[in-house]
């Protein structure tokens, strides 16, 4: 090997390391800034004013943030619950039953994942404004903004839950279900006693994914709550801050706390997964 070639090879190697390092710095720069500024004493989120825990103290007493956080959790919990049931059922049907037009149905249920979310958000806005609300009001009922938001979140979460559960279902040894049938279980008993328990880790992963997506969602929530209803989830609250003269430092505290909460959720998920892996091994 020539000296030039060797030199070039070594350079490529160091460039690789450098690029990786820079990318990680790029990824963590904003996070670092967030956490740093959450300990700022300044009354403005974007200005450093010395160390203090004021932001965290204010966070607990700011009714707007607390109610937004609460709304987010309520929406995410209810949307996740229903989407997990519907998505798991869909995965079971698509993977285990004989279905006509399977190809078209599959393509259709994947669509909510692949099309830009803003299109879905616009569709839901029009659907609620032009069809559902007028329809429901003729029988003297109304659709409250939280209901509309939950319905929207369920819609995109179903597909994600289905993808996660289905992937696991595909890897699941089919002979386990056959063994259950062979031992006299009816198809329903097989699902309840064998398939679902074995799918539990995937269902939990799917639910966690749906929960995260719902907590983070902006587009669908934003479009589904138009009309100045005043119902705000955390992302909506954060978005509304842009119009203000000064962004309150509580925002940084919320962000830091969310990071910590997510870390705990992930640790929990990993724990569940590890337990199920050791069972399967």
């Amino acid at each position: 090997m020539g000296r030039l070639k060797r030199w070039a090879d070594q350079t490529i190697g160091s460039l690789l390391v450098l690029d990786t390092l820079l990318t990680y710095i790029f990824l963590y720069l904003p996070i670092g800034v967030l956490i740093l500024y959450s300990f700022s004493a300044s009354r403005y989120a974007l200005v450093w004013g010395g160390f203090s825990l004021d932001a965290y103290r204010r966070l607990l007493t700011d009714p707007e943030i607390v109610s937004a956080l609460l709304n987010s959790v309520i929406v995410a919990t209810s949307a996740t619950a229903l989407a997990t049931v519907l998505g798991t059922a869909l995965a079971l049907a698509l993977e285990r039953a004989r279905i006509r037009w399977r190809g078209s149905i599959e393509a259709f249920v994947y669509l909510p994942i692949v099309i830009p979310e803003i299109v879905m958000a616009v569709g839901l806005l029009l659907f609620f404004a032009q069809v559902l609300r007028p329809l429901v009001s003729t029988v003297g009922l109304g659709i409250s903004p939280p209901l509309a938001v939950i319905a929207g979140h369920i819609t995109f979460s179903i597909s994600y839950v289905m993808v996660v559960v289905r992937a696991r279902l595909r890897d699941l040894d089919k002979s386990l279900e056959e063994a259950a049938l062979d031992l006299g279980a009816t198809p329903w008993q097989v699902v309840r006693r064998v398939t679902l328990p074995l799918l539990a880790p995937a269902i939990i992963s799917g639910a966690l994914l749906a929960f995260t997506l719902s907590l983070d969602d902006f587009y669908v929530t934003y479009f589904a709550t138009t009309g100045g209803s005043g119902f705000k989830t955390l992302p909506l609250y954060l978005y509304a801050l842009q119009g203000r003269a000064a962004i309150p430092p509580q925002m940084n505290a919320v962000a830091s706390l969310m990071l910590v909460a997510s870390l705990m959720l992930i640790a929990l998920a990993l724990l569940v997964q590890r337990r199920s892996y050791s069972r399967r091994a």
Partner: protein
Amino acid sequence: MSTRTLLWPGLVWLLLFFAVPVGIILVISLGQRAPDGTIRWGFSLDNYLRLLEPLYWTGPFWNSLGLAALTTILCLVLGYPVAYSIARRSAAVKHLLLFFVILPFFTNFLVRIYAWFILLRPEGWIAWLLRSLGLDLALLGSPVGVLIGLVYGYLPFMILPLYATLERFDFSLVEAAHDLGASRWQSFWKIIFPLSRPGVIAGAVLVFVPVLGEFITPKLLGGGKVPMFGVLIEEKFLGRVPDWPLGAAMALALMILVSLVLARYFQQLKESRWVG
């Protein structure tokens, strides 16, 4: 009763809250905006023809497409070496490194954009660093700021599929290439990159498609001065002068554009299956 029954609840839900709404977008896009801002139902392609006007088309179209393409390329350039480095580590280190790629995305994305707000503002460190290098770039309220925000927001969508293909990659092929006298540079371009094409394509689609519909990053980091499809759509629905039929036409045009990209993607996927 059989497992087939399980199909219905989910399917009906998606038909009602997804298929029907998309159908309504189509119906409304064929109508007109009445002077009082409400919808006048109709059946005309006027809104689609209006999309061809420079005001709606040229600016937002090229901005969206250009920014989406640039974001994709930058994500690939930044993300490939990272995915490659991770894939070559031992199992324990791999998972840790991958975890640290995803971790920042567990805080709300609006918050992350605000963090960039802090970083990119004129009196911030980055602007100061650039100024001292003799570069006086406006970062906030410019396409550069939007681009940084987009790359930041979508980088994991590139890294994850790339990692997934590279992780399964048989690196003894590279050893074989070295053994046959190839340099690292040559073995990368002749062996690794072609064989990781499915991951590259998947990553590109996962970045390109959602960026086309982005509205929040350009709105916050572009300060409304960088028009993209998403921004325009939002304006037509929730802005001061709403025009729902035109907005509906835009949303549908976006969906068609995305479908074309996806159709091309699946075709590519079929063609490159033999290497996967």
